[in-house]
């Protein structure tokens, strides 16, 4: 949609006649959401926008402004659509069992994501390293260390606690010494760096030793120590590996696994097992085949993402959407694009991208797309275009199920349970083939990488580079569930505001209190909150066959079992008020939108059936990883192998190789540039980034 947004700009004066062909009934792919019973929001997972998503925010700010200027104020101001979040909670396993919580608060910063960069501002590793030293100060001044029961009672205990904090501040003073080095660093060049590098590495080593001597046995300060240790390891690694002046930037270390690389540069084993790093892996879903025992992320992109996350955010560290991502992002984009003249054809599943006759493509050989083949999954009733949005609380939203009443033979399709988004449901009502020159000139292929073998088998059969990309750019399935509660989390014993929580117990290591979205729903009796959980979903040892129609249901049932067990297990530690004195979970806390079931069983586990859960196992729904070395297999939207086609998605070589909104938007901007020369590459924020 980012590419559609660019190509449909009024500045192009209608030069491009754009039609979007979409599988199923809604836009958004992995970011799609729907409205279910009582207008409740049903997401693919937990979506948080980070404060450095400059390109994504810029697009949405333009979209909201354009709609408002056109008199369509139903979506409101973009600042009302996103809420700031500067707090995050991380967990680590306590030595005596259970979990220990660490709260981190990141300071708000000036500006908003998507603002133009400051004059003269460029992305460089020397800049980041200088800022990394500031992080030491930030951590000390702005991080609240709040280990459970950590502060001994009484004045003496409080004084001892403060003394410890003061001692850590002394460590920061040593870091300030590195600030002098940072000043030198800003003026360093490859030619002048030799002496600087040697002294910097030595000083980092001394700082680490000092910190370790002082804090390694201090459980209360463990979190601070671990973050400091990882930061120092990163600085030393960037120096030692010559990354600072390497023309490849952080790609120079992208063949290393992130944790291995940190250990090689002096990070302690306990630091690479810290909640800080585990939280980053959890948020990135960086586990091979979804196996929590196999964390696997590349060092270069891992560091790039971390640097952007901590030093590149503006306004707030994170931004939470007011409602579902479909409602806040894709509904306004759809409305604005349609106003610009973009056409949408829903219920079209791509089955092949046709090329001219020939054999395997030789290296450097070019080809072009000759045809596009689709399965038509359903047709709108004659004379009426399909209207995909529904109104919930006065706002246009995507429904969780298609508008069967708008479809030909819709009653039958509904009763037979046609699953338009399921890879394993290949039912169709017809086929359609588009021909180049007759039906289209240029193609933008914007599907998930997991779907490529099914949407362009001809290209994969003939193009070795595409086969390599599909093979080496790994993806992982995910699982998610949402609960709506009749009591707020504070009442259930959770301390603190609505933190985003990571590094928690498996299988649902990441969760967030989403009370702020409930007012956007349409409950007769509003629940007090809703809570979203998500995590990777391990793949089975043998991949399911394409004819295994029951596979999604089996995995969804597995997620349901996981969710029920989770509520009765690890949740006890953080929501003690959700349990009775006999230790059983209070199932009646779950708000049932339809008040269904036998009233006598309302207090039992069967009430979970009223909540929402899903297994994201469709090939196109799988989350994209950045495994070591895989960056070489990614293909850029700027690639010219196909004269009249480009690609877009967070799996491409977008400059930011992470499965996230920003990577997808950057890729879309590159795709637009590939098709029409606009936007300028220099205007894609952080595309030219180490």
């Amino acid at each position, binding site marked *: 949609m980012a590419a559609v947004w660019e190509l449909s700009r009024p500045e192009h004066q209608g030069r491009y006649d754009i039609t979007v062909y979409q599988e199923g009934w809604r836009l958004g792919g992995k970011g799609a959401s729907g409205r279910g019973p009582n207008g409740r929001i049903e997401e693919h997972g937990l979506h948080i926008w980070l404060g450095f998503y400059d390109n994504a925010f810029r697009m949405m700010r333009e979209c909201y402004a354009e709609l408002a200027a056109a008199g369509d104020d139903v979506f409101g101001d973009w600042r009302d659509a996103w809420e700031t979040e500067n707090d995050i909670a991380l967990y680590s396993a306590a030595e005596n069992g259970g979990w220990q919580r660490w709260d981190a608060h990141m300071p708000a910063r000036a500006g908003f994501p998507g603002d133009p*960069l400051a*004059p*003269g501002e460029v992305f460089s590793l020397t800049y980041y390293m200088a800022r990394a030293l500031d992080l030491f100060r930030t951590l000390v001044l702005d991080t609240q260390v709040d280990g459970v029961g950590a502060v001994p009672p009484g004045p003496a205990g409080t004084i001892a606690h403060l003394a410890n904090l003061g001692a850590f501040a002394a460590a920061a003073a040593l870091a300030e010494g590195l600030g002098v080095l940072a000043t030198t660093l800003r*003026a360093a060049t490859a030619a002048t760096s030799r002496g600087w590098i040697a002294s910097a590495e030595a000083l980092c080593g001394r700082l680490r030793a000092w910190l370790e001597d002082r804090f390694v046995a201090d459980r209360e300060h463990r979190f601070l120590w671990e973050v400091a240790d990882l930061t120092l390891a990163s600085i030393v690694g960037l120096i030692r590996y010559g990354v600072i002046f390497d023309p490849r930037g952080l790609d120079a270390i992208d063949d290393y696994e992130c944790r291995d690389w940190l250990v090689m540069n002096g990070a302690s084993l306990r630091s690479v097992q810290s909640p800080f790093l585990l939280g980053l892996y959890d948020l990135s879903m960086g586990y091979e085949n979804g196996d929590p025992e196999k964390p696997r992320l590349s060092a270069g992109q891992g560091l790039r993402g971390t640097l952007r996350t901590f030093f590149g955010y503006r306004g707030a560290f994170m931004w939470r959407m007011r409602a579902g991502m479909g409602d806040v992002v894709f509904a306004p984009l759809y409305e604005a694009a349609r106003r610009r003249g973009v056409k949408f054809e829903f219920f079209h599943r791509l089955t092949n991208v046709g090329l001219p006759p020939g054999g395997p493509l030789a290296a450097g050989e070019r080809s*072009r797309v000759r045809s596009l083949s689709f399965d038509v999954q359903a047709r709108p009733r004659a004379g009426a275009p399909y209207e995909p949005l529904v109104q919930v609380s006065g706002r246009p939203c995507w429904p969780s199920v298609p508008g069967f009443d708008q479809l030909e033979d819709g009653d039958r399709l509904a009763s037979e349970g046609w699953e338009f988004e399921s890879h394993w449901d290949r039912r169709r009502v017809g086929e359609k083939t588009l021909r180049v020159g007759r039906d289209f000139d240029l193609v933008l292929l914007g599907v998930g990488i997991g779907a490529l073998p099914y949407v362009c088998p001809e290209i994969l059969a003939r193009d070795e580079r595409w086969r390599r990309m599909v093979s080496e750019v790994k993806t992982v399935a995910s699982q998610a569930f949402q609960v709506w509660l009749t009591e707020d989390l504070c009442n259930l014993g959770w301390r603190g505001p609505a933190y985003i929580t990571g590094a928690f117990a498996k299988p649902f290591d990441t969760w967030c209190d989403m009370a702020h979205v409930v007012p956007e729903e349409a409950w007769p009796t509003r629940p007090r909150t809703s809570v979203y959980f998500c995590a990777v979903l391990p793949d089975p040892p043998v991949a399911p066959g394409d004819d295994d129609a029951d596979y999604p249901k089996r995995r969804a049932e597995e997620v349901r079992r996981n969710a029920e067990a989770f509520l009765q297990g690890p949740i006890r530690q953080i929501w003690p008020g959700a349990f009775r004195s006999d230790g059983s979970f209070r199932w009646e806390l779950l708000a049932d939108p339809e008040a269904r079931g036998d009233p006598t069983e309302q207090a039992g586990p069967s009430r979970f059936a009223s909540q929402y859960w899903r297994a994201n196992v469709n090939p196109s729904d799988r989350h994209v990883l950045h495994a070591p070395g895989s960056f070489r297999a990614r293909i850029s939207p*700027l690639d*010219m192998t196909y004269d009249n086609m480009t690609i877009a998605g967070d799996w491409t070589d977008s*400059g930011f190789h992470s499965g996230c909104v920003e990577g997808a938007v950057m890729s879309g901007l590159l795709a637009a540039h590939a098709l029409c020369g606009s936007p300028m590459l220099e205007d894609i924020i952080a595309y030219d980034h180490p």
Partner: protein
Amino acid sequence: MTTPEKLVSRDDPPRGGPIRSGPPPVSQSVADAVRTGYQVVADNVRQGREAAQKFGQGNYNSSNVDKDVKVLTDRMLDLARDLTTTTLDVIERLLLETRSANAGLQAARILAAAGAAAAERPVTTSAAEAPPSSPLKAIALTVRFSGAGADKALDRASLLTRPAVPTEPSAISADPLVTSKEGGQPIGGVSFSACTSVDGVIATIEIPAGQGPGVYSGLVRAPGTVGPVGYLSIEVLG
């Protein structure tokens, strides 16, 4: 749609991937240019002083006078041209604008590091006087020569910054390159282009046969941008 006989193809993008090493900071580019400029000044002044010192010490051999004075005169003319026509004026202007973007501190630091050379002609305008400006961003510039005199031309110190609005390379132009030397006709055949095999913009300067030797300079302009976006300074050898 187009006809099958005339299918639409994409244009080659200016480059195929990100610049991971990062563009050189504007301040660095400008500072390098300033340092080069001041080095030219310093060399000339130093030689002038040396000559004056020889005169003052009274050990100057009269047989050397004509030759040395001629060299000194030529260099002072070069210096005057450099100072008054394009190079340093443009560099200085860029430096001032860059200072307003808080990047000039580094330029000033490097300038200071240039030592005595910088002291010969200090920047006289304060940062407070710098006009508000859009961010300046140096663009890689490759200077090529064509024409019968191409093999006698070389690039001395050229600079191109990013125009204020998106601009096709072919829309960029240059004033005729002029020299103060007698007989040096202005060089007007300058065109700009870009291709994927070369980073940045290419300036192609046509050197006619018989072009007089000397240093030629001219400002670069772009439509929609107020003021020059850079300069070309080349030398045609005798």
